[in-house]
């Protein structure tokens, strides 16, 4: 219901498919919604309960991983085999791992790595992808065709295959992991941004800039990219989720970072051999952490996308 309590066209459901009237607005209509387009995006986004839950979970994970160790001190560098594999108890709320580290502390440390790598890799992926895609879309012609064929060729190689091959070639450390994931993941934003650029290119204001003598670079950075921010942000959110999954999978496959550094995926793979002996605390916390974080990012990304589609419809 709208805030004033009156029934507005936004709340009517003409076709019975559960879609309110406001979402059936034809392109170009603006009348029923108040506030600027961005405010409406925010409103729809915040209406989505899952988005709020997602944001809360992300915040929690960030605090847990980065602020947690300041509150809950554990020893993470020297191992202590005497207390290895202890079940959760008073001293160690989540037990200890095979070399004696406290699992809860490890989880926090792993969270730092996983989140850092996730964000950084997503940043690189989106950064490269946006520039490549926008440039290709804007320049057009043969150069665009070549750039996009390169993207197509790289896309033909499944991400994991490329990651494994690159991981086998380059030694593993956190910066290299970030670069490897970023270099594999930039393809999707590139395609998306190119598509958006192509459709934005023919808009009147871009043509106006050209008429006024603006060069390609100006159009690119001051007009095209700001208007694709919506799509880019949505994709970036999903990239973070995917990057965290990639890191987890790579670590499971043994191509992650060496100890004492750790991330959730590595904890999972380390704890594997013990799970059948009943040491459940070695894998469930890390696994649940991964799932919760990735789910949270997916919620947020989905809600953002829904919110932006509403904006598109009233443009």
């Amino acid at each position: 219901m709208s805030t004033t309590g009156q029934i507005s066209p936004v709340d009517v459901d003409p076709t019975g498919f559960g879609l309110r009237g406001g979402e059936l607005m034809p392109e170009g209509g603006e009348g029923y919604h108040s506030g600027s387009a961005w405010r409406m995006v925010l409103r729809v986004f915040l209406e989505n309960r899952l988005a709020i839950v997602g944001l809360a979970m992300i915040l929690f994970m960030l605090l847990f991983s980065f602020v947690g160790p300041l509150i809950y001190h554990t020893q993470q560098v020297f191992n202590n085999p005497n207390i290895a594999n202890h079940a959760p108890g008073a001293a160690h709320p989540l037990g200890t791992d095979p070399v004696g580290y406290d699992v809860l502390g490890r989880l926090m440390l792993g969270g730092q790595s996983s989140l850092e790598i996730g964000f950084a890799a997503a940043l690189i992926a989106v950064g490269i992808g946006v520039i490549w895609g926008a440039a290709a879309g804007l320049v057009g012609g043969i150069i665009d065709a070549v750039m996009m064929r390169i993207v197509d060729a790289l896309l033909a190689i499944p991400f994991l295959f490329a990651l494994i091959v690159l991981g086998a070639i380059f030694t593993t450390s956190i910066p290299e992991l970030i670069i490897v994931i970023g270099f594999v993941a930039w393809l999707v934003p590139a395609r998306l941004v190119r598509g958006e650029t192509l459709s934005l290119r023919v808009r009147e204001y871009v043509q106006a800039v050209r008429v006024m003598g603006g060069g390609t670079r100006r159009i690119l950075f001051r007009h095209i990219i700001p208007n694709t921010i919506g799509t880019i942000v949505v994709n970036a959110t999903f990239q973070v989720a995917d990057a965290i999954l990639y890191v987890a999978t790579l670590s499971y496959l043994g191509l992650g970072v060496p100890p004492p550094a750790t991330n959730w995926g590595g904890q999972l793979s380390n704890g594997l051999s013990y799970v059948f002996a009943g040491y459940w605390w070695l894998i469930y916390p890390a696994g649940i952490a991964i799932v919760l974080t990735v789910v949270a990012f997916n919620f947020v990304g989905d809600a953002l996308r829904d919110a932006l589609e509403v904006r598109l419809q009233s443009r």
Partner: protein
Amino acid sequence: MIGYLIRRFIQAIIVVIGVTIITFILLHLLPGNPVRAILGTHASFQAVKQLTDEYGFNKPLPIQYFIWLGNLVHLNLGFSYKQNQPVLALLSQRIPKTLFLVGVSLILAILLAIPAGMWQSVRRNKPDDYVGTGLIFIFYSMPTFWLGLLLIVVFSEYLNWFPSEAPQDQLGLLSQLNGMVLPVVTLTLVTLALFTRYMRSSMLEQSIQDYVRTARAKGVSRRAVLFKHILRNALIPVITLIGLSIPGVLSGAVVTETVFNYPGMGLLFYQAAEADDFPVLLGVTVVVAIATVIGNLIADILYAVVDPRIRYVS
């Protein structure tokens, strides 16, 4: 239509050539002398020189590329010194098994995702949608290997319904269907989650189109509109999306095979990565990439068959 097909086909060939170039570059990014990698660090100077000449490693790179390409076309994918077999032989053993896993999972996922997506789009924002969407999200967000492990723990260890390892014998996987269940279920669940999301958003996109409003205004029942109009139009983009997600399914297959020790191409790839067996790694990459391109081509052709608009626009 023919014009579109020709254009698409040429595109696909260019992409395949691009893939071979990329794989070739990867081969030469490898650290160290490839001959030393094959022969080991204690090989004699004579042996190194002989192998170098034999393989043409001292020729300029472009010529090497064309030699390699020529080999590829003759289906000579190199020789794996770690496993002591030609790469082609290894692949032909493993590919059918992976094809089976991926094929069954894909078909199951598609068959289940279509009704699931439809149901979710109709029950949007009602409680069952939240539950359904929530479940789908969770499956979608799980690392594939974790889902596999969970299934093993629950169904293999506690319930003892299925074995935790896929059947290993050469006679065939069908000899022990029991062991096939968990790997297929794992891959299917992950793929199903993805496809259901596609289906749901595609159905929703169609539901807000004007023709739906028109049909309803004419008095067509909700059910008829759903099945005769929305569903058909919603399936169209989903076809392309399914085609595009084939690389992802293959990646999932690699992980699933690793978890369940399933003797397919994915496991071969992983073992080769561990053993630094580069001929195998690159042979698999090329095969997989070409399969992906073919898959996309088929998806695009299907798309053109089903939706006449794009034949003329693109």
